[in-house]
């Protein structure tokens, strides 16, 4: 995922495996993570990296686990300041 247009928006912080990252106001969780990391989760059975697919809430491939416990559907959840995710296979796990 590469930022292309309309990117002049205020920055907000979030965390992946305890490390701080910067996203932008209006980013979905998917955009914020995938513009800086390769995947969102690993698959349940084969443990392969997954990074979403449909971006419209249909495929359910983009669930990300939060530090607090619940999972969020990354393509349809807006990033909020201070959100913290746990992503297997990225630095920090």
């Amino acid at each position: 995922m590469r930022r292309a247009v309309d990117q002049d928006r205020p920055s907000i912080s979030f965390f992946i495996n305890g490390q701080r990252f910067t996203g932008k106001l209006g980013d979905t969780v998917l955009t914020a993570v995938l513009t800086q990391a390769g995947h969102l989760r690993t698959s349940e059975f084969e443990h392969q990296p997954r990074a979403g697919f449909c971006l419209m809430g249909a495929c359910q491939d983009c669930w990300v686990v939060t530090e607090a416990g619940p999972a969020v559907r990354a393509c349809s959840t807006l990033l909020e300041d201070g959100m913290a995710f746990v992503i297997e296979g990225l630095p920090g796990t």
Partner: protein
Amino acid sequence: MSGRPSPEIRPVVVGAGPAGIRAAEALVAAGLRPVVLDEGERAGGQIYRQPPAAFSRSRKALYGFEAGKAERLHATFAALRAHIDYRPRTLVWNAVPGELHVMGDAGPATVPFSHLVLATGATDRIYPFKGWTLPGVFSMGGAQIALKAQGCTIGETVALVGTGPLLYLVAYQYTKAGARIAVILDSARFTDQIAGAPAMLRQPATLAKGLYYVAWLKARGIMIVNGAIPMAAEGTERVERLVWRTPAGEGRVACDAIALGYGLRAETQIADLLGCRFSYSAAEHESLPASDATGRTSVAGVYIGGDGAGILGADAAEAAGTRAALALCEDAGLGVDGAATGALEARVGRWRGFRAGIRRAFPEPVAADFALADDVILCRCEEITVGALRAACREDGVDELNRLKALTRIGMGRCQGRMCGPAARALLAHHSGRSPGDVGRLRGQAPIKPMPLAPMPLVFDEAKP
């Protein structure tokens, strides 16, 4: 015209896209106050999707040729807000007669209805191929949403794979946004496109836009390969390469992202849960809720309009949404202008003719399914392979889709067969020697989508046996 509507009439509209907004508008004009439910953050539906508030691009930049229509639809909705009970971020996850079960900002709730308009739109029609689960492979609609709603492209060097007009539109939009298009791989042959042209002349302006995009892309030297079948998305951690095959041989190109889509398929689960009769459309290669030109389904009080009733596009969706709401008004004993309903039906009819041309120009890629190797993952939710389906067909003699589902769990995962359904059906038809219409269809089941924010165990356990 008859008098004021009775308080017994409690209309609900599901979907705030072109069809749902026009339906709500007609209901308000008849003196009703509909509940409008949409799981999205903002109204507009797919084509006129509005980015989150923090974005500032103009409508012209967002919607191109369709900016005027987008503006009119958004303005209509803004004017309706005071006259409807609009609930955004509200997912309808179950439906029983007279009642919808929703999950919204305030948690779970039930929404009673006397009359229901379904305007749930569509999602991409997908045919899997080897490597399609790698990071960097997205649906065609997803690639467009990334740009429209997030100002992002799915990669720097993007391959577009599938068929349909959206391929060329996305290529155009991506090039303008600074991405490089590695290749456009269209399963349709050039001869298909010629064959579809006469019917598409019924909407000359739309045909002209399509031809404009293709000419624009060709003038920039962008590679377009017709009659091609994708063989593999290759890479270790993410996509690095796309390999394809044509009758002339194999091709490959380096890329860091792939958009995949063979047109659209209707979202029909709510009609299914409510017991609407379905019939198989050979032209559309899918089972659709039976409905007449007015938008009435087989269940009294349930109406349907827009792409959720069968793909006809956004302009038709607006007309069909209005028509379905007027059918509701007729059934509720509110007076309706007969000339207006006739004109709306004629408008939708013209788009039906155009759609027939599209289906000839960009036909279903039937041959692609059978070329799939046994180790290709068909179900990305539960990682069920093509080989597992073939084994069930061979060893257990399965010839019906829900039997195949029971044996292999295909279509039982979190996406409920939205991504694997068309391919599973085609594969089963091929191996059982029956027609796709005869192998049955995957039935909708509640919850039709997992809850948007759920405790981890709940989400992942419900997909287990």
